[in-house]
């Protein structure tokens, strides 16, 4: 909360309705934009949006799931808390998917829901759902406000909890009668949560032990997760990596936390990661884990993951330490504190230069794997999705671009072939794997960063899950580009069916011409383009980037193209399968 907004809120000691108090509280938390849809139990709040002067823009969406993902896209692109609003019952339950997504990817989100009046709670009233009960396993915390006077306190605590420590979603459920109750508004800046502390101990036990392990290691690697982005610690990470002179692998969520173009980067590990990242981890003798959580899509078979490595684990959440893999040394706390402390400790060692020298052979090995095994694909008669990704990557080089994706093959191709050099410029649904994330998240990101070029790589399956938000994009003139990789299939599922289910393509054919995405986009009044050849790709990419208006592009891609390399589910992470290569490969420089 900024000082001026807080002072304004403190000075405001007038009587007002609970609904107005919600708006004043949001203002005090520096909220400038929120997403939602009105309905019966939240009507008083929407009435107040119109009745009083305030500084919050409300964006009317077409489905509450869209509101949630837009708030997420905004939060992840800007680092601020995203806010979404829904009515009781079905409005609230439509927020469940974005809340779960925010929980698994640690996104700061505050969801405000209307609830039936207090005297009807528990009676199965019209549009009543026990939303605090429903979301209990997927929120960082939730409030069911019991008294109108508690509204400012609940919202203040919700923002505090959502944005501090390991960020996450918080739901505030406010019965309709409380929104209509007059209260003496008082905004208090103190937090009264005895069971929650975002203050971390300043003593840095473990730093010297970590420096010892690094000094004795011959094959160290930095294994970096999304915590570095949430912790705003990218600069500290780069300084640490350069001091250590060790390879850096960034998980799907961490893409951009360490520059893809950096010579020390070995990019993404895991199921569709680079061969060199997985080999580096597999042969390493020390994993310096930073804000990552040993997810199964990274580790593959857990007990075969980095079998010879000791583990250093930096995290803000103590529950992640030794959850999936035992940590020999752990440092719990803010990465902006712990990473520089480790760097200082390493540099201070008088034999540090000798260590770098001794680890040089390892680094040279890693870099030769990287040189010899780039992500690659074969161009052919049919349009390849990787070519589309590269075309956007080249066209926006040097510009402030934010890349958003849905979930599936297109997501992996984007992760493999985009080169991203900064944090908060890659927004993807990693933990929950939410198809439909792309369109709304791109809209929210664009609204948070109006000057950036936002590109959503979506699949035709994903796109059809949330494409109604094109109406939102059109109404608010949000110029994000939605690049639909249309192969007419639920492509990733099809890939698994081809490889592991005897080519039985059960219920995965979507028929790529139904709907006609160009006609559909035109119906929404947005720019609609199509490309079926490489030459057309180059033309539509240039046109879309120049247009600066909401755009859908239907890329008709080869439906047989698969994502490689691949670690089959349950295999060890270095056992990657790949297709047979001949000599006609297009090698993507990495």
């Amino acid at each position, binding site marked *: 909360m900024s000082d001026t907004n807080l002072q304004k809120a403190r000075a405001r000691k007038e009587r007002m309705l609970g609904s107005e108090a919600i708006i004043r509280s949001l203002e005090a938390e520096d909220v400038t934009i929120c997403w939602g849809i009105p309905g019966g139990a939240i009507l008083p709040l929407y009435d107040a949006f119109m009745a009083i002067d305030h500084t919050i823009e409300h964006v009317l969406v077409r489905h509450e799931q869209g509101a949630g993902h837009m708030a997420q896209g905004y939060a992840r692109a800007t680092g601020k808390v995203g806010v979404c609003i829904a009515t009781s019952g079905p409005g609230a339950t439509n927020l469940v998917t974005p809340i779960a997504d925010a929980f698994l990817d640690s996104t700061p989100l505050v969801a405000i829901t209307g609830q039936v009046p207090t005297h009807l709670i528990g009676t199965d009233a019209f549009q009543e759902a026990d939303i605090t*009960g429903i979301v209990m*396993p997927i929120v960082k*915390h939730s409030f069911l406000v019991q008294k109108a006077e508690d509204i400012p306190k609940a919202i203040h605590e919700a923002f505090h909890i959502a944005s501090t420590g390991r960020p996450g979603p918080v739901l505030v459920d406010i019965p309709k009668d409380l929104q209509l109750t007059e209260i003496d508004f008082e905004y208090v800046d103190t937090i009264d949560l*005895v*069971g929650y*502390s975002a203050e*971390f101990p300043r003593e840095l036990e473990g730093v010297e032990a970590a420096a010892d392990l690094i000094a004795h290691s011959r094959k160290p690697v930095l294994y970096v997760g999304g915590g570095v982005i949430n912790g705003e610690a990218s600069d500290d990470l780069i300084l640490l990596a350069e001091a250590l002179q060790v390879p850096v692998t960034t998980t799907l969520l961490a893409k951009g936390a360490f520059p893809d173009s950096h010579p020390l980067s070995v990019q993404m590990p895991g199921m569709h990661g680079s061969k060199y990242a997985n080999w580096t981890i597999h042969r390493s003798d020390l994993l310096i884990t930073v804000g990552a959580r040993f997810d199964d899509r990274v580790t593959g078979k857990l007990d075969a993951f980095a079998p010879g490595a000791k583990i250093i684990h930096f995290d803000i959440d*103590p*529950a992640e330490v030794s959850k999936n893999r035992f940590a020999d040394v752990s440092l*719990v706390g803010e990465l902006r504190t712990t990473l520089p402390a480790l760097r200082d400790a390493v540099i201070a060692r008088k034999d540090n230069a000798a260590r770098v020298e001794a680890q040089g052979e390892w680094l040279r090995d890693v870099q030769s794997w990287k040189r010899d095994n780039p992500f690659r694909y074969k161009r052919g008669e049919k349009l390849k999705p990787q070519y589309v990704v590269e075309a956007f990557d080249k066209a926006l080089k040097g510009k402030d671009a934010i890349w958003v994706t849905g979930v599936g093959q297109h997501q992996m191709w984007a992760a493999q072939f985009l080169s991203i050099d900064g944090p908060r410029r890659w927004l993807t649904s990693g933990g929950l794997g939410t198809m439909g994330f792309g369109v709304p998240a791109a809209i929210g990101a664009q609204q948070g960063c109006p000057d950036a070029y936002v590109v959503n790589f979506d699949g035709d399956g994903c796109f059809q899950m949330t494409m109604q938000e094109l109406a939102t994009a059109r109404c608010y003139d949000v110029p994000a580009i939605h690049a639909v990789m249309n192969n007419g299939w639920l492509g990733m599922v099809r890939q698994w069916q081809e490889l592991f289910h005897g080519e039985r393509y059960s219920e995965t054919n979507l028929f790529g011409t139904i709907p006609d995405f160009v006609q559909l986009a035109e119906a929404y009044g947005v720019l609609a383009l199509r490309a079926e050849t490489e030459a057309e790709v180059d033309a539509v990419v240039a046109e879309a980037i120049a247009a600066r208006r909401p755009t859908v592009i239907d890329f008709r891609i080869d439906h047989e193209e698969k994502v490689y390399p691949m670690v089959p589910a349950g295999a060890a992470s270095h056992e990657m399968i790949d297709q047979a290569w001949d000599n006609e490969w297009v090698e993507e420089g990495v």
Partner: protein
Amino acid sequence: MATPGHHTLSVLVENKPGVLSRVSGLFSRRGFNIDSLAVGPTERADRSVITIRVDCTRHSVEQVVKQLDKLIDVIRVLEVHPDMAIERELLLIKVQADATHRLEIMRMAEVFNARVVDAGADSLLLECVEHPDRLAALEELLAPYTIVEAVRTGRVAMTRASVANDEGRAPLRILG
């Protein structure tokens, strides 16, 4: 590390609506089975203690403690070690007791410090507050007379008065 064992957790919570669901829900969500659970007020009106008995590995109990500690309404989680604590549970048990067996059962109850709290024509209702192991022994001894009904509260625990505060009440949480 992989051998299961019994662990008693004493969880101090803020007395807020839904707190019991949050705590018990966490166990089911993370796949931990609860053996017994008792909840009740403390010396402060705004706090409650939930005493939970789980059967799991040392690694699992460390995980569950850390996850519990992340709940906003949880103030402190303490694993109670049996040799440093007093553990008690209340048993109410109704036993078939016709005239021929009535005295026998009452004598047995005496040995276990159980009280007869109600009597019918052919049954007795006993109450016993004891260590849960002793309650199990009592139930076993009464079984041949036919137990009509039995209900237990779940254990509650407190570190011994002789254990220094710092030792016995040292919270297992990593954060301050």
